[in-house]
């Protein structure tokens, strides 16, 4: 094998599984370490740099970081990354003075952002310090977009949204609430230098079965959640059936329990492993005694005398055909009596306000064609992000879209090529403080994951505004942070210092090292004391070692970054080095800012 190029920032980036898994590449081990040091504001700011809304995301992020956490490959449960983010938010101090200043003299460029959700606010956050004037249009009476209208208040209290959104708005955004944009054509004619569309995927999917429009007790999930959020709906029937198996279904069923629902059922047509809901959204629903009925497909709304009395379902048996495709067979039929049906079977983008004759290309699902790198549509200067770009995803994706769109907008306004973007960079700095002293807590902690305390069952349903999760207590998070394996403290190897004493190989607690003759990857993977069997994780191969010409191997899969290899290394061929991923944002792309910084240096 060729020697591994550790100069490429993406090599070490991939070792930090959580950061690699996060769409915005949040420096997770970095902020967890700051929490451990009691530097909550710094931890919040480190988060904010990449994900902009730590308080919101610390509660409702889809946390793609957790399933990939290295800890899962060593024991059962990942580090409670998301809930630790909330700790930083709960305990932070004032941070407004730490944000990059917004210049009083504007740069003369005006940007229109449509939809006051996370994507648009990220664009504003990134462009304000560069002197842009931002006009933000929102059809609803409040900012927040889908996170305010669709996420129930018992999961995400409005004050959290207010705080993090207001910080950005108060930095000089021209906010226009109750101001739906009715025509893209008209907007294009105004004097905006660029337009960003962050309108989400606001349309819930319909389920057009017999009886659908014969009663007024059938609701589309996300519209219903919006009505609940804005208090247009404050009650629900006693018996509620929710159709669907995603996170919206979970929000609908738990909301129903708080609005008077007594017998609430979630009915899904497939098996549990096919449900789209995240475990951490399904489990609280089951804890609250929601009935989950699987393998039932809806057939008819049963309406008697204009009143919904039940829902008829076909009971399905699933099989795989010869091509591996799932097929279903109806084996029974039941009617589930109910007073209300809520449909939570997906959501769609809808752009009735974008005229089809303005030169914007739409795909077969009537969604604009958007470039996955620049986020530009086929109309120059019109950018998309969040759910509006590629359909419903999640908040953290929307934030990353916002960052990327901001870079594109800045380049577009400066007539630079949009694809000429900065690459990731990195800093790598030794973590060695002394003979056996490192700038991180390198000892392995055997604690199991701590559970976040919640409001007791008997008092959580009284009011939909009661936030169920209370956040970690100090005694818990101070130990939970120690579970983090500090994957960003990299084992960095310098081949020409190695004397091949084998000390590192013997001391490694997970047997992930070996010195051997170079060969093909398969052979090398088998040579490691405990073979490297996870092909998704990289195999490090050093340059030829000076004494024998053999190579040092390291399986990145289960290294726990304890630093024992570096402690045992007599020549510091192994060193533990703090890796910092340098992510380019709009400000970094700004030539003027860079020139000023260079001058200051």
């Amino acid at each position, binding site marked *: 094998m060729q020697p591994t190029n550790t100069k490429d920032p993406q090599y070490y980036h991939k070792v930090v599984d959580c950061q690699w898994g996060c769409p915005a590449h949040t420096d997770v081990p970095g902020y967890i370490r700051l929490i451990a040091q009691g530097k909550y504001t710094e931890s919040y700011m480190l988060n904010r740099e990449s994900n902009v809304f730590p308080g919101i995301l610390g509660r409702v992020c889809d946390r793609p970081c957790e399933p990939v956490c290295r800890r899962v490959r*060593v024991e059962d449960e990942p580090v409670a990354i998301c809930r630790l983010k909330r700790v930083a938010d709960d305990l932070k101090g004032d941070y407004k003075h730490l944000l990059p200043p917004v210049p009083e003299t504007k740069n003369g460029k005006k940007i229109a952002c449509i939809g006051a959700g996370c994507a648009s606010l990220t664009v504003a956050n990134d462009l304000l310090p560069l002197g842009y004037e931002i006009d933000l249009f929102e059809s609803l009476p409040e900012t927040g977009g889908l996170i305010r209208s669709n996420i129930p208040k018992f999961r995400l209290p409005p004050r959290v949204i207010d705080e993090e959104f207001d910080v950005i708005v108060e930095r000089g955004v021209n906010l226009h609430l109750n101001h739906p944009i009715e025509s893209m054509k008209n907007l294009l004619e105004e004097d905006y230098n660029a337009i960003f569309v962050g309108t989400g995927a606001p349309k819930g999917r319909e389920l057009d079965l017999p009886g659908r429009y014969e009663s007024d007790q059938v609701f589309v999930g996300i519209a219903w959640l919006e009505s609940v959020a804005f208090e247009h709906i404050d009650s629900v029937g006693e018996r509620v059936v929710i159709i669907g198996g995603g996170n919206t279904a979970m929000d609908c069923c738990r909301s129903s329990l708080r609005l008077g629902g007594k017998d609430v059922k979630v009915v899904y047509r497939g098996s549990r492993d096919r449900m789209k809901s995240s475990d951490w959204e399904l489990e609280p629903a089951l804890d609250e005694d929601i009935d989950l009925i699987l393998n039932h497909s809806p057939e008819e709304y049963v309406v008697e005398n204009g009143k919904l009395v039940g829902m008829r379902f076909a009971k399905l048996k699933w099989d795989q055909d010869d091509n591996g495709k799932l097929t279903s067979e109806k084996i029974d039929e039941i009617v589930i009596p109910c007073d209300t049906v809520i449909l939570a079977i997906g959501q769609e983008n809808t752009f009735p306000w974008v005229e089809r004759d303005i030169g914007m290309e739409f795909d077969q699902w009537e969604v604009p064609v958007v470039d996955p790198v620049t986020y530009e549509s086929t109309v120059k200067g019109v950018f998309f992000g969040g759910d509006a770009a590629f359909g419903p995803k999640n908040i953290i994706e929307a934030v990353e879209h916002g960052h990327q769109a901001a870079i594109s907008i800045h380049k577009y306004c400066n007539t630079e090529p949009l694809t000429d973007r900065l690459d990731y960079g990195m800093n790598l700095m030794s973590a060695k403080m002394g003979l*056996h002293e490192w700038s991180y807590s*390198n*000892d*392995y902690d055997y604690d199991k994951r701590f559970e976040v305390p919640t409001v007791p069952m008997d008092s959580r349903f009284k009011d939909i505004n009661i936030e169920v999760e209370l956040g970690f207590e100090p005694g818990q998070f101070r130990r939970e942070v120690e579970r983090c394996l500090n994957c960003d403290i990299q084992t960095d190897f310098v081949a020409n210092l190695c*004397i*091949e*004493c*084998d*000390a590192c*190989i*013997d*001391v490694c*607690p*997970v*047997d992930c090292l070996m010195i051997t003759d170079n060969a093909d990857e398969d052979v090398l993977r088998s040579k490691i*004391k*405990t*073979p490297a*069997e996870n092909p998704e994780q990289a195999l490090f191969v050093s340059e030829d070692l000076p*004494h*024998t010409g053999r190579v040092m191997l390291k399986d990145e899969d*289960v290294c*726990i970054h*304890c630093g*024992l290899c570096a*402690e*045992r*290394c*007599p*020549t510091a061929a192994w060193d533990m080095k703090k890796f910092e991923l340098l992510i380019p944002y709009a400000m970094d792309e700004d030539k003027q800012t860079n020139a000023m910084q260079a001058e200051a240096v």
Partner: protein
Amino acid sequence: MSYIKKPKILRDNAKRNELGMTYTDYEGSMSTLCAGCGHDAITGAIIETVFDLNIPPHRMIKLSGIGCSSKTPAYFANQSHGFNAVHGRMPSVATGAQSANSQMYYIGVSGDGDTLSIGIGQFAHAIRRNLNMLYIIENNGVYGLTKGQFSASADIGSTAKKGAPNLQTPIDPCQMAISLGATFVARSFSGDREQLVPLLKSGLMHRGFALIDVISPCVTFNDHEGSTKSYIHTREHINEAVYTDYIHPLSEIKVDYPEGSTLEVDLHNGGKVILSKAHKNYSPVNRSDAIRSVRESDDRGEILTGLLYIDESQADFIENENTIETPLNELSYQNLCPGSEKLAKLQQRYK
């Protein structure tokens, strides 16, 4: 050395031996030797050896004297028996232990100081007795524990860390052992585990005294340019005379060697030592040949390694002394202590 303890993490695909044990189960306390010490690598090789041989830890006795080397039994097999003897006196403790129980695996770990200076008398007689044990010398040419003075194995002309040359002739434990009639003599290098592990296995399974002299660089005091026992010097001057492989009894492993190129030695436990010669005229079963070859490569400044000499035909200590094979702790009280009458009778003979 390291301050934190090695975390105990069991991987799903960790190798297990026939007893269901993992490498970790054969480990000991964290080493307090210097980082990069050759001794730690030898410890690693011993762990690999006893793991592969499926040795139940309670059937193994670790013995040592005094010195850096003699600390190492603390770093492997912490479920085994151990005895840390007085300086250079490990062979007599081993003799006593073996008299009481010949059914254990004996691993002695000593150094060049412990063996070739203060303990040279005991060492010589352990060889003559043909004690059934594996005797490892972790040979680094210096007294590391007392800050790097030359030991009896330091070569003439090699220098101490600050430059003073050694003027006294070295003792070569291998030449000495062969001439004293040792039945298993090998030399190896801590930095060559592929060679060391099969030698350790063969030595442990050999019936009789098995000496393995392992060059084990002292990273702190003897890994510099003037040293002849540094990592780089050893690597540059090593010359493997005989490649050794050990095949365990009933093992399924088949090794293909070109016909006529190997020499097989059957061990008493039913295992086999397979020797393939790197040197055409080298005969590891001929004492005179072996001594001559070691001397000649010494003259050339080379370090001859591998299984230098083996003789499986000699009787060991237990057989020669005609003592009982059953461990004393398994004998009945009646047999162990036949009573005052018998004692009086015995004493009568010496009057």
